[in-house]
């Protein structure tokens, strides 16, 4: 047996052992056996799908695993799930953090999502406990919301009938009023219809799997927001109804008071409609949040937050979706604030809105990603700056255009192959809309501003 063959045998055995060891390491690394950890626990009424070694995530980031499940002493008690979490995330786990059992997609395995706490709350000590949020609570919340909408819609109908009765004698005004009320009613109907569909959809999902929502915080907040808005609407509707009644009480005849009343009623209705539109927007946003998820899930990435820079760049090159980009230079948008961060400078808001104007002609369901770029400093600095810039622009877009759900950010540092500067770098932001080719009714939207 020659020595070259002996060397091959050595390579074969050592290579095989290495391959095996790499596998062991990958499994061990995922289970965080090689990093410092601390333990926490959370209680749940139902631990379906959770077992030893089920993953734990903190705001979507893999953070640890379940190491034990304690069974309650008596029926009705709560299960205590013990978890091991990376020590470097300890500073985010506060006493007001919450844990929820969620799952990846319809057939996805369960995982435990931790919500980072607020800075004001103290750290959870090693071995400490968090509040567990049961999946059922979210479903309950939505059911409650549905009830609210039902009441709101009923209230609209009642008000319309009342107003029709009241103004029944005045031919000239009836038409206007009815149209007004119809508009309002339609709005309410639309909201209710949309949210009922949404609720049905969500309920179905919740029933089938344990929670579909992206993050505890995100989804719960979104639903809560919808509920708050609709409560506001109800208040507005009630107020307007009361004012109308008040006016009717003072009603004496077809004089100027009637005109005043109608104007006033119109204003009130307008405000109510605005409030309802808010609800509609938020509901749409919530829905679009899922659509947005689906968009990325379709390409093998499941959450924009989990997308790495490289993966995002790959996505930009995908030929099934055409990114439309509008480049905005930093010197016209931002100024450094004394704290080392960035703020929008004068006129920046107008520039952003102008740029958005180009993109608004595409369907609202098309996701928009605010890409942040920065060229100054070393790589860490550049990434932080670009994230800060993207966040600033996004928060403005969210306020101005109510696109919370369909808008994400991506910090890309300095490199921008397609930038109008021509040197493969960009300093500023780019608004990138992902549209399907058939939606591209107009070319040339990628021109620099």
């Amino acid at each position, binding site marked *: *047996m020659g020595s070259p*063959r002996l060397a091959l045998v050595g390579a074969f055995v050592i290579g095989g052992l290495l391959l095996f060891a790499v596998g062991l390491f990958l499994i061990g690394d*995922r289970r965080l056996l090689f990093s410092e950890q601390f333990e926490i626990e959370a209680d749940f009424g139902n631990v379906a799908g959770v077992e030893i070694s089920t993953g734990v995530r903190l705001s979507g980031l893999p953070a640890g695993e379940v190491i034990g499940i304690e069974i309650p002493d008596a029926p009705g008690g709560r299960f205590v799930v013990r978890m091991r979490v990376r020590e470097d995330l300890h500073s985010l786990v506060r006493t007001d953090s919450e844990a929820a059992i969620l799952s990846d997609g319809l057939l996805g395995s369960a995982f435990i999502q931790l919500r980072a706490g607020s800075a004001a709350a103290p750290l959870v000590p090693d071995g400490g406990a968090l509040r567990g949020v049961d999946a059922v609570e979210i479903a309950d919340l939505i059911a409650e919301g549905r009830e609210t909408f039902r009441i709101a819609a009923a209230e609209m109908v009642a008000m319309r009938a009342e107003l029709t009765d009241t103004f029944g004698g005045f031919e000239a005004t009836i038409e206007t009023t009815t149209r007004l009320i119809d508009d309002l009613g339609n709005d309410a109907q639309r909201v209710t219809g949309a949210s009922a569909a949404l609720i049905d959809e969500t309920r179905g999902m919740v029933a089938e799997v344990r929670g579909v929502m992206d993050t505890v915080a995100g989804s719960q907040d979104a639903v809560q927001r919808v509920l708050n808005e609709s409560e506001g609407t109800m208040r507005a509707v009630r107020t307007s109804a009361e004012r109308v009644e008040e006016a009717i009480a003072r009603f004496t005849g077809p004089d100027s008071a009637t005109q005043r009343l109608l104007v006033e009623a119109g204003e009130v209705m307008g405000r109510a409609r605005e409030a309802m539109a808010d609800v509609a927007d938020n509901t749409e946003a919530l829905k679009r949040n899922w659509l947005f998820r689906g968009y990325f899930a379709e390409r093998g990435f499941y959450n924009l937050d989990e997308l*790495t820079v490289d993966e995002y760049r790959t996505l930009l090159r995908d030929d099934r979706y055409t990114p439309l980009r509008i480049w905005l230079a930093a010197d016209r948008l931002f100024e450094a604030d004394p704290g080392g961060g960035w703020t929008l400078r004068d006129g920046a808001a107008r520039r952003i809105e102008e740029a958005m104007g180009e993109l608004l002609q595409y369907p609202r369901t098309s996701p928009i990603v605010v890409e942040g770029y920065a060229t100054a400093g070393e790589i860490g600095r550049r990434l932080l700056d670009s994230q800060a810039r993207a966040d600033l622009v996004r928060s403005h877009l969210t306020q101005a255009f109510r696109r919370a759900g369909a808008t994400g950010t991506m910090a890309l540092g300095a490199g921008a192959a397609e930038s109008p500067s021509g040197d493969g770098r960009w300093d500023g932001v780019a608004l990138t809309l992902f549209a399907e080719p058939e939606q591209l009714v107009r070319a040339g939207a990628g021109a620099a501003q």
Partner: protein
Amino acid sequence: MSGFVRTAVVTRLASGGRAVIFAGRALRDMFRPPFELQETARQIYELGWRSLPLIAAAGYAVGIVMSMHTRASLERFGAEALVPAGLALALVRETGPLVCGLLLSGRVGAGVGAELGAMKVTEQIDALEAVAVDSFKFLVVTRVVACMIAMPILTAVMNFMGMLGGWTAESAVSGMGFEAYFRAAFSLLQFSDYVPGTLKTMVFGFIIAVTASYLGVHTSGGTQGVGYAATRSVVTASILMIAANVVLVRLIFFVFPEMAE
């Protein structure tokens, strides 16, 4: 029971008994010096290294095909995210070890059965004994040990190539990155899937080599007997290996109960 049947049954039992004694001797002699290290290395080269292209190609193809099938069924539930993890789990737990074992029992079973059979009928085994070499250690134990070393390594290669094939299929469909794929693939794997699944192939290797060696050194009837020994090696080794796999899986579930869930 007729005399003929009784004789047939007794012959079968006796032959089975001899095979068990043969296996026991292989197991015992493995740990008794002198160790035929150089010959063992040669056999690792012959049985392991030279099986690499086959195993790698098969693993890659199996990975692609399994990925496409897994994807097709998971797509209906919108669970494409689970394709890498599902493929990895199936590969590491069962498909990798079993396919690798069957391929090796085909290649090695036939090879060893025919080689030893030919050595037997051309008196080479006697010649070994005549030059004062323990032919059992020199021919059988070396092949058994080589097979037991090569199997887990080839299985690791098969698993890796399978995942590579899975990634190829996945990236063609969804453009998923290499690193992202492997991260996703390992997301559901446990040590209790990986370690026993890989190490149980040592038992497969033992069964394959012992069966082929036994049939090889008990070859009679000239060149026709050699062909017969080769064929029977493949068939017997495959069946014994699959049967042993059932027992091993039960045993592993017994030792690692969390795997059965």
